[in-house]
């Protein structure tokens, strides 16, 4: 029985947004909607304080989103670190080996970026920087191709959905661009993993992830953290009680 270590405030509905997106996509309402979004996002009193029982909270505003991304990048980096220590990778085909090795490097580089960027953003106040998380990948068989690539597929698709869904909550243009620089690399990863793992030649951007409008996945932090929590991969508890929501 795995406990779900990530506590997330799930009270906000996540359904209304996608249903009404088509309606919002009318230029006439652009200015009004845009203004209200900006106003509602400007309230970022970046509190990343630990709560009384010592569990780290991601914080609010852009800091919260950065810590959220840092958590996901820590997860991906830790996973691929374990992949490269496993027997499947050691004996994988040349192409699969190279792809997984590159993914390992890229995710570690993303992780280290967030650590440095967040630390700088809070002027070195480590109490506001998500600590190094501990992971439990005992449910993954690192000797088995299907287990490794299947997990990689979920993690990369989740990364794409997470960045796509978080962009709207970012208030600092530079952070939005950096998130954009990362998400397209996550999407390149997702396509590569799907391409080598799945038989369907269309799987790289399959109908399970790209909808009839040609849009990729986008999920709000609450939904992503809930799904990540359910995997049991993250041992270290943290909360996400102040993340921006609609």
């Amino acid at each position, binding site marked *: 029985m795995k406990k779900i270590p990530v506590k997330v405030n799930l009270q906000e509905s996540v359904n209304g947004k996608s249903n009404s997106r088509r309606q919002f996509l009318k*230029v006439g309402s652009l200015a009004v909607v845009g203004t209200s979004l900006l106003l509602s996002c400007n309230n970022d009193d970046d509190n990343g304080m630990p709560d009384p029982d010592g569990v780290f909270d991601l914080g609010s505003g852009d800091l919260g989103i950065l810590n959220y991304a840092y958590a996901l990048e820590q997860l991906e980096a830790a996973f691929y670190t374990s992949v490269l220590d496993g027997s499947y990778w050691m004996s994988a085909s040349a192409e699969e080996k190279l792809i997984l090795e590159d993914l390992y490097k890229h995710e570690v580089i993303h992780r280290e970026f967030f650590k440095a960027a967040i630390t700088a953003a809070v002027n070195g106040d480590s109490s506001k920087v998500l600590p190094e998380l501990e992971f439990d990948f005992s449910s993954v068989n690192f000797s088995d191709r299907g287990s490794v690539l299947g997990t990689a597929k979920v993690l990369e698709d989740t990364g794409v959905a997470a960045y796509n869904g978080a962009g709207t909550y970012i208030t600092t243009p530079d952070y939005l661009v950096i998130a954009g620089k990362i998400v397209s690399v996550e999407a390149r990863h997702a396509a590569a993993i799907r391409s080598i793992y799945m038989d369907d030649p269309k799987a790289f951007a399959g109908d399970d992830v790209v909808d009839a409008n*040609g*849009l990729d996945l986008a999920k709000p932090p609450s939904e992503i953290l809930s799904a990540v929590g359910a995997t049991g991969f993250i041992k270290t508890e943290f909360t996400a009680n102040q993340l921006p929501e609609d």
Partner: protein
Amino acid sequence: MEIIKFLESFTSDNLMAKTSSRRDVFGTFGELGKKAALAAIPFGLAVAPKKTFAFQDQNAAIGALQLALTLEYLEAEFYIKALESGVLPAGSDAEAIYEQISKHESAHVSFLIDGLGDNAVDSPTFDFTVGGTFDPFNENGTGQEVAYAQLLALAQAFEDTGVRAYKGQAGNLMGTPFLTPALQIHSVEARHASEIRRLRAHVMDMDLNQNALGWITMNNRGPGMPEATQAVYDGEENVTQGGVNLVNATEFTNVAVSQSYDEPMDGDTAATIAGLFIVS
């Protein structure tokens, strides 16, 4: 609204400067042979129309979406013609991949037209041969092998341009309801770019290397790409993000660091690249 009003006095200084010598371009085709090399005259010859991109509307978000729609028209028509050309082997993975990408690009066109409403621009008239420089659909007797190579090279250039162009417009869409759908299109373009890169590597029997896996290494356009596509890759060699030099901050080289981040492209550069294929 006519696209011709949207794109005015095109400045292609960047690309024109990169036409360089034919010999350099031949060198990039490697194993494909002289036949391919002869057909590989770079982008940006004098046949390119002299037009420039100018925002029709003061609203930056609308301008961003109009640029996006223009790029989607380009991609959508390219893939439809590719599938009709008979250049892709029938029943091949390549054909299935092009079908899936074609479906998405056509959907993006419809989605953006809906979203822009009265502000939607019309489709330009495209010339994917760039005045006879290319023959990706094998309409002018180039032959299937060379046409196929060009079909793959153009697809890679279009997809990588799409990724960079959407990223470059993110700031103009901030605080608007268009941002999330634009991000959702952006990552689909990145999935396409990744797949086309591996497909090219397989079809052209390239050695497995950093350019054959799905990501951009430094500013390398990749083997077999005409030199004039370099404009699509310039700037991708950046290794400093948010003021952090990630080569210094990690144990990794600039190769891995540059691969880890895709760089944005400004609207003028994206429009210049698209403009090469626009007749009117």
